[in-house]
C-alpha cells in the first residue's frame, strides 16, 4: 500500500500526467464551473454596462452591449450629484445600524438566558420555537408584521386597552419608525437562529471552570460574567466583524414587502433603489452603476474587516 502511493507521487510530478489522471474529477466539476461562469462571472463582466448607455432593443445582445455609447463615469456622477444619494445612504445606514443595535446583542442574550434556564422541556421547547421564524419566508413574516401593526391590529388594540394611547397609531405609515420596524422584525426573525452559534460555543466550555467558580462562591451571574462571556468573545468578535462588513446589506425583501407609499422616503435602501431604477424604470445602466457602487464598497469593507480580524483575533475569513 505504501509502495503503491509512493510510485504514484513520483509519476504524478508532471502536470500533464496529473491532468490526465484527474480528468474524471474535472468532468464532475464541470457543471458547477459553468454555472459559476454564467451566473457569477457573467454578471460581473456585465457591469461594463454601468459605463455605457445600454438600451436593450433590436439586434444581437453582443452588438447592443458593446455597441452602446461609452459614457465613462456619467451614471456614478449622476448618482452622487442627486439628492438621492444622501437619502439612500441615510436609509441604508440607519436600517443597518439599528438592525445591528438590536439584532447583534439579542442572540447573545438569548443564548445566555437559554444556558441559564434549567434543562428540561421548557428549555428545549423555547429553543425550537426561537429558530422557527428563520424558516418562514419574508412574505409570511411581512404579513405577520403588517397584521400586527395595522391600525385595527393587535398592538394598537392592546395599547388602547392599556390606555397608553387614546386612538390607534398608524405604525407603518410613519417614516422614521419604518427603520425601527425593519430592525426589530429582523431581530425577531433571526435571533434564535443566530443564537445557535453562541450556544455551541457555550457547550464547548469546560464544566470544571464552573465547578471551580462555585466552590469559590461565585453566583450564577458572576459565573456568566467571568466564564461564559469571555468564552464567547471569539465568536462575538468574528460575527461582529462580519456584521460590520455587511453594513450596506440593509436588505431588500423586508423593505419591498413592508413598504407602502407613505414611507418610500425612508424605505428606499440601496438595493431597493437599484431595483427601482434598473428594472422598474428600465434604466439598466444606472441601476447597474448603483449596484456596482454597493458591490465595490462592500468588497472593500470585507477586505478591511478581514485584515483587522487577522490582526486582532488572529483569525481571518479568507
Amino acid at each position, binding site marked *: 500500500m505504501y509502495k503503491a*502511493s509512493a510510485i504514484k507521487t513520483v509519476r504524478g510530478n508532471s*502536470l500533464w500526467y*496529473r491532468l490526465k489522471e*484527474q480528468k*474524471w*474529477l*474535472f468532468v*464532475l*466539476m464541470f*457543471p*458547477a*464551473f459553468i*454555472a*459559476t461562469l*454564467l*451566473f*457569477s462571472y*457573467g*454578471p*460581473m*463582466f*456585465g*457591469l461594463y*454596462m454601468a459605463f455605457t448607455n445600454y438600451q*436593450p432593443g433590436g439586434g444581437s445582445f453582443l452588438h447592443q452591449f458593446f455597441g452602446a455609447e461609452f459614457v465613462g463615469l456619467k451614471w456614478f456622477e449622476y448618482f452622487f450629484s442627486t439628492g438621492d444619494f444622501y437619502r439612500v445612504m441615510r436609509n441604508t445606514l440607519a436600517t443597518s445600524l439599528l438592525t445591528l443595535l438590536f439584532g447583534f446583542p439579542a442572540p447573545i442574550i438569548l443564548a445566555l*438566558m437559554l444556558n441559564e*434556564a434549567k434543562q428540561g422541556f*421548557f428549555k428545549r421547547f*423555547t429553543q*425550537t*420555537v*426561537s*429558530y422557527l*421564524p428563520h*424558516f*418562514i*419566508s419574508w*412574505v*409570511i413574516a*411581512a*404579513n405577520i408584521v*403588517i*397584521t400586527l401593526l395595522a391600525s385595527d391590529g393587535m398592538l394598537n388594540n392592546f395599547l388602547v386597552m392599556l390606555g397608553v394611547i387614546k386612538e390607534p397609531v398608524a405604525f407603518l405609515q410613519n417614516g422614521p419608525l419604518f427603520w425601527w420596524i425593519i430592525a426589530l422584525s429582523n431581530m*425577531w426573525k433571526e435571533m*434564535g437562529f443566530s443564537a*445557535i*452559534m453562541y450556544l455551541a460555543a457555550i457547550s464547548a466550555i469546560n464544566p470544571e471552570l464552573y465547578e471551580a467558580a462555585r466552590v469559590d*462562591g461565585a*453566583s*450564577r*451571574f458572576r459565573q456568566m460574567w467571568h466564564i461564559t462571556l469571555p468564552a464567547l468573545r471569539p465568536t462575538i468578535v468574528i460575527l461582529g466583524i462580519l456584521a460590520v462588513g455587511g453594513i450596506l446589506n440593509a436588505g431588500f425583501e423586508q423593505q419591498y*414587502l413592508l413598504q407602502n407609499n407613505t414611507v418610500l422616503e425612508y424605505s428606499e435602501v440601496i*438595493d431597493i433603489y*437599484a*431595483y427601482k431604477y434598473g428594472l422598474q424604470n428600465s434604466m*439598466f445602466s444606472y441601476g*447597474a452603476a448603483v*449596484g*456596482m457602487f454597493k458591490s465595490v464598497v462592500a*468588497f472593500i469593507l470585507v477586505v478591511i474587516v478581514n485584515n483587522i480580524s487577522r490582526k486582532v483575533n488572529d483569525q481571518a475569513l479568507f
Partner: protein
Amino acid sequence: MKTSLRDRTAQVIIIVLLSLLCVSVIYPFLYMLAVSLNVGSDAAKGGVYLWPREFTLYNYEIVLGNVVIRHAYLITIARTVLGTLIGLAVTLLMAFGISYRMLPFRKQILAYVLLTMLFSGGLIPLYIQLNNLSLLNSFWVYIIPSAFSAWNMFVMMKFIQGIPEALIESAEIDGANPLRILFVVVLPLSKPMLAAIGLFTAVGHWNDWFAGAFYVSDQNLIPVQTFLQQLLSAQDISTVLGSNNNQEALARGTMLSNVTLMSIKMATVMVSAIPILCVYPFLQKYFVKGVLIGSVKG
C-alpha cells in the same frame, strides 16, 4: 442562602422573558389560524384573537379550490424537489473534486469560487444575463441559476476533507475511479451533511418569492410564495380571485360575500406555511447540525 434567592429571581425573570419570546413566535400563527378558520365578514368586525368565533372551512375551500393557487403549489413542490436534488448534486460534485489535494490548479479553482462570494455583479446585470440565456419566464430560472452555491460548496468541502484519507487511498489502490470513490466512500459518510444542506436548500426553495416576482411574468409559473406576495399587495379580493379562475366559488355568490381579502390571505399563509410548520419540529435537529458543520473553521 442569600445567593439562591437571587438565583431564583433570575430564573423567574429568564422564564418570563423566554416565554414572551415563545409567545411572540407562536401567537401570530395561532391568530392567523383563527382568522383563516373564521367567517371573513365576522372576523372583520374584530375581536378574533385566539380561536375562531364563527367557524368555517370556507376560506380554505376557496384557497384550495382556486386553480391559480393549486398550480402555484405544484410549481413550488416541483422546484423544491428538483432544485434541491440538482443543487445538491452540482455542489457536491464540485466539493468532491476540489477536496482532492493533488488536483491540478486546485488553488486557482478555489480562488475562482471564493471571488464570487466576495463580489457580485448585482441584480441588474444578472437580470440581463438571465434574459440572454432565455431563462426569464421559464421554470428553469428557479433551478439553474441557484444550482451551485459557493457557500454550501465550502461547507461540503470542509466535511469531505474530514473523511480519513486512508479510506479514500485504500479505495484508490483497489483501482476505484473518482466516481466510484464518490459513491462508495464519500457519499455514505456524507449523509448527515447532505441531509442538513439539503434541508436548508429545500427551505430556501420553498420560501423563495423573489425569482417568481421578478424573473417571471407568466402567472402560470409563479410559486405559492409569489402568489402570496401578490395577495399581500392586492387591494381587493377580485384582483386575485375574481378573474374567472374561481367560477364554482363565484357561483355561490352569497357565500363569497362573507369572504374577505384578510381571511383569504390568512388561509393562503397557513396553506403555504403548514408544510414547514409540520416538518420543522422533527427536522430542527438537522438544521442545527447544518449550522454547526458550516461554522467549523479550518
